[in-house]
């Protein structure tokens, strides 16, 4: 990748972020908040102090894991947007195993819980995966629906079989894990968590960039018909990426449960699944770039929570910014002239080729 190509790739996400900042700043100003105060709050809350940095890292971890999974699935051309539900199922499965262990031998039960979470996330993802690959059901719709189902399932589990007795309905919380099982304290950052996240990152990078299967994924994403002519098992690759992205999101749920939370509340981290998709897209589906974008959005989230406590700025102020970034992220910088000409000829709405390869096998 030459420097100019790299710059070109970075320019678009940066432009989208800047444009989103400008629009939200205008909204803040119009509704009577000072942009300077907000910017200072954002910096203080994300990188301004050791605590702020810890908080940024803590929120980057789930985004990184979900984003990496999304990147792999999107690279193969499968639009798995079910990270939220897969994360919830991972969290639930790991918590169930963890509660069953009930403080007995952490050496056995913690790895077992982690494994259960990854498997649960992968299985939850494989349901729409199988429907997509063998029956052609649109995966955007089915993964979205699986999210809603998982949200309700978590609500039921937290208020029913696993409940702690405190809270009710949508705010229900499960029983807490034995302290000996926890991978970090409430801050959500610890060597164990960092090592786990780094291992996943390294594994995904090696997998995508340095293995035959990784190359197959890219080829399937570019052109599934051509890939199948070249002897690549397109169905196998499809199932694989669904499992990988689901397992990664499941692990995000495990780390949330065994890390900062220690228990599950119904509907925790409600938008982390969608933000994970944005993280992957802003990072151009490149594992290493995803680290940077996960840190950026993690910092944004930390800043949001910080400002809601220290200032009177609504917590939703940065949700707005998040949404606007997502809105602009796949748009071109400028309508290019040659491109306009081509579009006039066909009059068609196209999908951005390099970022979001198509999944459709010509039938």
């Amino acid at each position, binding site marked *: 990748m030459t420097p100019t190509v790299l710059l070109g790739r970075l320019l678009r996400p940066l432009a989208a972020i800047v444009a989103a900042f400008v629009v939200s700043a205008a909204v803040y100003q119009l509704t009577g908040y000072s942009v300077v105060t907000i910017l200072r709050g954002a910096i203080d809350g994300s990188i301004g102090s050791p605590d702020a940095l810890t908080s940024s890292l803590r929120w980057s971890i789930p985004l990184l894991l979900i984003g990496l999974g999304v990147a792999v699935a999107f690279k193969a051309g499968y639009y798995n947007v079910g990270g939220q539900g897969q994360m919830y199922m991972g969290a639930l499965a790991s918590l169930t195993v963890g509660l069953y262990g009930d403080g007995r031998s952490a050496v056995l039960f913690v790895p077992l819980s982690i494994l259960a979470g990854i498997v649960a996330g992968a299985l939850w993802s494989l349901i729409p995966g199988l429907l997509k690959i063998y029956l*052609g*059901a649109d995966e955007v*719709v089915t993964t979205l629906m*699986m999210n809603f189902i998982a949200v309700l399932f978590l609500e039921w589990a937290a208020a029913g079989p696993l409940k702690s007795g405190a809270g009710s309905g949508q705010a229900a919380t499960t029983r807490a894990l034995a302290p000996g099982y926890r991978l970090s304290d409430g801050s959500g950052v610890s060597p164990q968590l960092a090592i786990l996240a780094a291992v996943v990152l390294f594994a995904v990078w090696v997998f995508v960039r340095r293995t035959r299967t990784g190359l197959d994924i890219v080829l399937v994403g570019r052109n599934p018909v051509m890939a199948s002519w070249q002897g690549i098992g397109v169905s196998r690759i499809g199932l694989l990426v669904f499992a990988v992205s689901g397992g990664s999101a499941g692990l995000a749920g495990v780390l949330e449960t065994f890390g900062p939370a220690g228990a599950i509340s119904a509907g925790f981290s409600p938008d982390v699944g969608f933000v994970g998709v944005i993280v992957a897209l802003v990072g151009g589906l490149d594992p290493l770039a995803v680290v940077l974008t996960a840190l950026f959005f993690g910092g944004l989230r930390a800043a949001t929570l910080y400002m809601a406590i220290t200032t009177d700025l609504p917590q939703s102020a940065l949700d707005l910014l998040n949404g*606007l970034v*997502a809105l*602009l992220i796949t748009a071109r910088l400028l309508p290019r002239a040659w491109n306009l000409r081509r579009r006039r000829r*066909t*009059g068609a709405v196209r999908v951005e080729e390099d970022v*979001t390869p198509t999944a459709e096998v010509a039938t």
Partner: protein
Amino acid sequence: MIELLNTSLQAGTPILLAALGGMFAHRAGVLHLGLEGLMLLGAFITVATAAKTGSVLTGLALAIVVDVLVSVVFWALITYLDANVMITGLALSMSGVGITSYLLEAIFGTQGAIQAPRGLPAPVSGAHGVLRVFDNLSVLTWAAAILTVISWFLLRRTRFGLRLAAVGEDPFSARGAGVKNDRMRLLALVAGGALCALAGAELALSSVQSFSENMTQGRGFLAFTAVLLGMRHPIGTAAAALFFGLAEGLGIQSQLGLDHLLPAQFVLMIPYVCTIVAVTVSSVLAGRRGVALPSVVEKRL
């Protein structure tokens, strides 16, 4: 039973209105995942304006204007800046949650709910017998029924409808036949925006008469899937939307005391499970008939 039908009609109306909007977009080849955001925005603007000015009608008009403008921006993004339709739609929904929650706090200083001075008028109230099914339904429920028929006529019996279908199904041929694809998409999205504004207004003003944070709770996505479930046909879409209304009605009723049969959460899962089944079945059927899926049209042209 009659109460259940009445609740279901009321719960189904916002979904139906948004689904009609989604259907126009879908017919033009745009898989519109932004319905949720537009609906929420419509609900907020209606209630906020009504709370400030005291006029529900002004609120409704302003909601339509804003939703149409946002739809035009959406159209420009996917048409001139080649943004990914699905991601941008999803982002529109996320931004809808963000901006309404933000404005709720910034303007009204609350994270809870704001009250509208009054609800929508109900043409029939105090009915007896079987007619109680139609008791206290807002004027927009009746409008939704009429709009369904109008949509059917527009799409199935006019040149406009034929052209719209051509744009969605085969833009290249449509272009060859002299149809302006971009303009047709714009019209469809504008219609979708206006209908979503109505959907939001109905949601906020029919039973609760207030706006609360993220009050759509996935109804826009249900509307989106009602379109798929109804195979993009106005009557099918309306039936699917009302089915979701029925499922929600059942959920509401179960919260009122059917808990011992099945937890409420599982009742609420029914529409989502049905959607997955329906999407799968329709894809299998379409594959067998050798017809390309509508979504394929969108993904790559």
